[in-house]
């Protein structure tokens, strides 16, 4: 018995499937691996944000007697919550359109995919514009004035950088789909892009709460 098993060995059904089917199996397996890798990558990015969020909470609760802190004898004003709320709606809206972009791709509806993808890109860029406006008008003493500015500009700046990278990423994805890099069975890039975009949204939920509502 043992001998016969050893002789048989273990081999995969090369040639038992058609070429296309075999290719598809390889695709699915590599996709699963890449998906796990990408999720882990996003997980480590979450840790990076968490480190700065921890720093913000720590500084605010243990170092600063008042919040917003006092700079040169003046209590700094709070941030403009209403403006940020509008801007957040823009970002979350882009999460919704991204979702529909992917869904329409899966169902083979190219025109609607195009529409939602371009909307996502526009909304993402709009959020960045809003953030730039906010940076120009925030009266909290600049980046190096106080720990308020330090944590606010570093954290939202890091987030904004992620959004920027995301917008570029989505543009590349959109161009790729125009050049038919993906098909209806194989579209890992789009899945990863959607994941990344939702990740950026989720981080923003935490930042919005910490900086504008707390």
């Amino acid at each position, binding site marked *: 018995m*043992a001998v016969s*098993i*050893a002789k*048989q*060995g*273990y*081999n*995969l*059904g*090369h040639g*038992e499937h058609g070429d296309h089917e*075999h290719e598809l*199996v*390889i695709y699915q*397996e*590599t996709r*699963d*691996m*890449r998906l*796990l*890798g990408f999720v*882990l*990558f996003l*997980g*480590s*990015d979450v*840790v*990076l944000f*968490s*480190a*700065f969020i*921890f*720093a913000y909470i*720590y*500084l605010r609760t*243990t*170092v*600063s007697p008042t919040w917003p*802190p006092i700079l040169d004898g003046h209590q700094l004003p709070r941030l403009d919550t209403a403006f940020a709320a509008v801007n957040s709606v823009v970002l979350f809206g882009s999460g919704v359109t991204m979702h529909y972009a992917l869904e329409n791709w899966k169902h083979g509806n190219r025109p609607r995919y195009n529409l939602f993808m371009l909307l996502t890109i526009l909304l993402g860029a709009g959020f960045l514009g809003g953030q730039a406006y906010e940076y120009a008008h925030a009266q909290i003493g600049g*980046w*190096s004035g*106080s*720990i308020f500015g*330090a*944590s606010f*500009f*570093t954290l939202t700046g890091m987030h904004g950088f992620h959004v920027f990278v995301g917008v570029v990423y989505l543009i590349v994805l959109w161009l790729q789909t125009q050049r038919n890099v993906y098909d209806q069975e194989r579209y890992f890039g789009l899945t990863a892009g959607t994941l990344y975009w939702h990740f950026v949204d989720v981080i923003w939920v935490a930042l919005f709460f910490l900086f504008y509502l707390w």
Partner: protein
Amino acid sequence: MATLAPGVKTGSYHAVLDHIHPEPTSFIRKYIFSIDHKVIGIQYMITGGLFFLIAGLLAEIIRVQLLSPQNTFVTAATYNQVYSMHGSAMVWMVIIPLVTGAFGNFVMPLQIGARDVAFPWLNLAAFWMFPVAGVILFSSFLIGAPDAGWTEYPPISLQGPPGTTMWCIAIFLIGISSTLTGINFIVTIVKMRAPGMTFTRMPLFVWAQLATAGLSFIATTALAGALLALFLERTFGVPFYDPKHGGSPLLWQHMFWFYSHPAVYIMILPAFGIVSEVLPTFSRKPIFGYKMIAFSSVAIALLGFSVWAHHMFTSGMVPWLQLPFMILTMVIAVPTGIKIFSWMATLWGGSIRWTTPMLFATGFLITFTCGGLTGFFLAAVPADYHEHGTYFVVAHFHYVLYGGSVMGLFAGIYYWWPKMTGRMYDERLGQIHFWITFLAFNGTFMPMHWLGLMGMPRRVPYYDPAYQFWNQFASVSSFVLAASMLLFLYNLFTSFRSGKIAGPNPWGARTLEWMIASPPPYYNYKKIPAVLATPYDFGNPLPYIGLDAAPGATEATPTMSSHPVPAY
């Protein structure tokens, strides 16, 4: 499709496992920018080895300076730079890349029956960040190296020489490298195990790498955050850490140790894994408590995140936090103790062969246990108030890092050397190397316990003459320790040139990597084998089927299992 014996779970990733790329032919693609995990592992080994020599040289500068109480060998300013760079380099450019990058890359995919890691190109990129980071780190000497210790506590590091900024960049880069490697390893181990290799059939070294990868992909990013903030503060004056501008130096300590305590497990867990391979092989006995050893690695990794503040007992943290951190620290001793007892039970009644790897693994057991015990003293808050910042700490962490990680590395190098090169080393020279290392190591670091308890502070270039004798004793021992490296290198060099041909399995070991030719062919396995049991059941037939031996390894078929162990 072939049928497997009952009990073999087939993984679902056969197609990927079966996918073979053609072997590169140009020298550059084959040896420089290789995507073969074995070549990358060896690249890590050579680069890390070079950095080890540099960092070791820096250690010897420290020891020369401490030969007499008021020595003028180097200035105080240089001395600060030297010990800071020694510590930084040893931790980030030597131990971590060697235990994960070198051994993880070379051994782990072989042991799980994979043809490569999950993302070979990512592996290539992660490797090349390492020499670049090393060059950046060491060239900081040109503009004034960091001088606030390897921990670079602000506000001192905020005022440090310009090289401190390069330090930030270098450590950030090596951090990205090890995060990517961690992710790569996790995906590889989770998705690419050979059919039938369930989690409870994985070699213990693979378990250790899995736990380590989990640690490094989480913890390292936290360090990246701390470094980024330090970089921003030094370059743009963004006030995170400077109390004068509303920041907090303690914030750095929290973030730094949230990484750096787990980092000590990044440095030691793979060594645990190596020892868990070496001990059963040379005792010819199934390892005792396989599952306990495997799960305790994971337990250590998880607990490792909860103890960082034991480095801050004397930093002015809130006192009521001290007790929980002290208790948590001591709780980590439990899974570690489980491992140590399992290893001793493995040795118990085995037919032991005292080869060089076995000697180093046993030396590891002894010295690491000593280091663990002194760790207990440091974890006790009242004792730590006395010992903190003294040579007692230096003694403790060298027992763990040198006596643990480096001894484990030596055990691993000797153990897998025949697999890597296809040649045997000189056993007699290896044993001499072990004895010199073991004795000189204790001679160097044992006296530091006394010095610390007598009150000698660490990081000082001058000291009270009362400490002179033991300092000289330690220095002279350290010169012997350094000299033993020459013997080691000579041994490896001659073995590489003209050592005896090793054959596939010179030790009669049972893990998968020994079933194929030495050195293993490109893409490792011609046909992916299936696994039927754990690899430590000495005396039973080999737990693999379908091993269509790769070229040159025809004798390494399952029928070899009952053969007696060849003489080495």
